[in-house]
């Protein structure tokens, strides 16, 4: 993978993609007209959880932690943004567990956390929709509303010139989703399920974004998360298709779990 960065597309000349696309491209050379878009769309947890559902019947209620996790603003805006991300991810787990009460509790938690970072108005409608859809046990709609809540938070933060906080929301969500994934995979290990942890694009993206953050955002918690990502990165496999062992799944889970604990801890 390293040779692919910076990603290049040499064979994409002026007419290379017209009508019939080339069967292969050289991703090690980049003409100016095929520059990479820096924005990465972070997958929602349900995109990964859905694959696990196809492989078996995970006991999602055992993965659900919403009863134990903090849903209150804590520390500075950076910590609250990270907590908000973990809570939204927990919402996806509650949907998998089909727990209407937990989804509703999470919907209210999302609202309280959003208020603390100044984006309550943007997610108020989503929060209400999450609660209504949970009452109706319309799980697909809850998934859509949770995804939308992430986007609404990001857009509102962009308007407030707080894009960095929105990246922390995404990061918090990714960490909790990853922790949950390791828990499910660890309980019933298979090579295919473990392969879902191979996410180099996202690790590089988060690392890049944290490194580019303003000094005031580089709190000790954010630095701890950055270090955690660096520790996780070599465990997730170098090339697509690399096998991730059961032991490695546990190690990734432990690292993600430590970071989730730090995110939810007072005094961080």
């Amino acid at each position, binding site marked *: *993978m390293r040779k*692919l960065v910076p*990603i290049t*597309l040499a064979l*994409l000349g*002026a*007419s*290379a*993609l*017209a*009508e019939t*696309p*080339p*069967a*292969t*491209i*050289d*991703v090690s050379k980049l003409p100016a*007209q*095929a*520059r*990479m*878009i820096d*924005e*990465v*769309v*972070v*997958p*929602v947890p*349900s*995109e*990964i959880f*859905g*694959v696990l559902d*196809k*492989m078996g019947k995970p006991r999602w209620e055992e993965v659900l932690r919403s009863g134990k996790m903090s849903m209150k603003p804590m520390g500075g805006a950076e910590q609250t943004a990270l907590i908000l991300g973990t809570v939204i991810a927990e919402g996806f787990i509650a949907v998998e567990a089909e727990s209407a009460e937990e989804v509703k509790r999470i919907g209210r938690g999302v609202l309280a956390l959003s208020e603390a970072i100044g984006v309550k108005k943007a997610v108020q409608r989503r929060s209400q929709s999450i609660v209504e859809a949970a009452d109706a046990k319309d799980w*697909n709609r809850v*998934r*859509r509303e949770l*995804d*939308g809540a*992430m*986007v609404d938070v990001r857009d509102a933060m962009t308007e407030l010139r707080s894009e960095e906080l929105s990246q922390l929301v995404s990061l918090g969500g990714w960490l909790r989703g990853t922790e949950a994934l390791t828990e499910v995979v660890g309980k019933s290990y298979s090579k*295919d399920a473990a*392969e*879902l942890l*191979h*996410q*180099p*694009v*996202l690790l590089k993206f988060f690392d890049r974004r944290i490194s580019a953050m303003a000094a005031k955002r580089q709190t000790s918690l954010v630095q701890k998360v950055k270090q955690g990502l660096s520790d996780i990165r070599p465990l997730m496999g170098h*090339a*697509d*298709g690399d096998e991730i062992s059961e032991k490695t799944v546990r190690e990734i889970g432990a690292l993600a779990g430590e970071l989730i604990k730090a995110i939810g801890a007072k005094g961080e």
Partner: protein
Amino acid sequence: MNYVGITNSTPVKRYLLLVFSVFWAAGACMANIDDALTFALEAADPYVKEGFTVREDYWGGDLPVKSTKAVVHQLFKGNEYWFWMGTDQKTAKISVHIYDSEGRLAEVETWQKAHMAAARIVPKKTGSYYLIVEVEKSPQERTYWSLAYGFR
């Protein structure tokens, strides 16, 4: 707009006009990308009925004719994905193609229509994939585009 007024205006007025122009241009740009997104989502509509979940997030921008953009994206083996591209230009011809991390064409199906193009992939491996978007033909110097995706 009366441009003569700019030359006779005070620095404050000029600044306000500049700010207004920047916001107007930014607003127009977003409107075009939003229009492009509307077509991308219209392309997605039949697939929603087939069980695809469409993400709320999307990519967008503008491109000169015969030039490409590359988007790196994480895909998961076990899912099936559609990528839908839209443009606000009816007579433009756009395309989207999907390559794996080794640079091999990985899509299993594509199509192009007025305002739209799409590509489908069933990833053989979990990992990074490259989405290549192109404006093949367009009456405009730069053409706005938007790319959405869905999975099942």
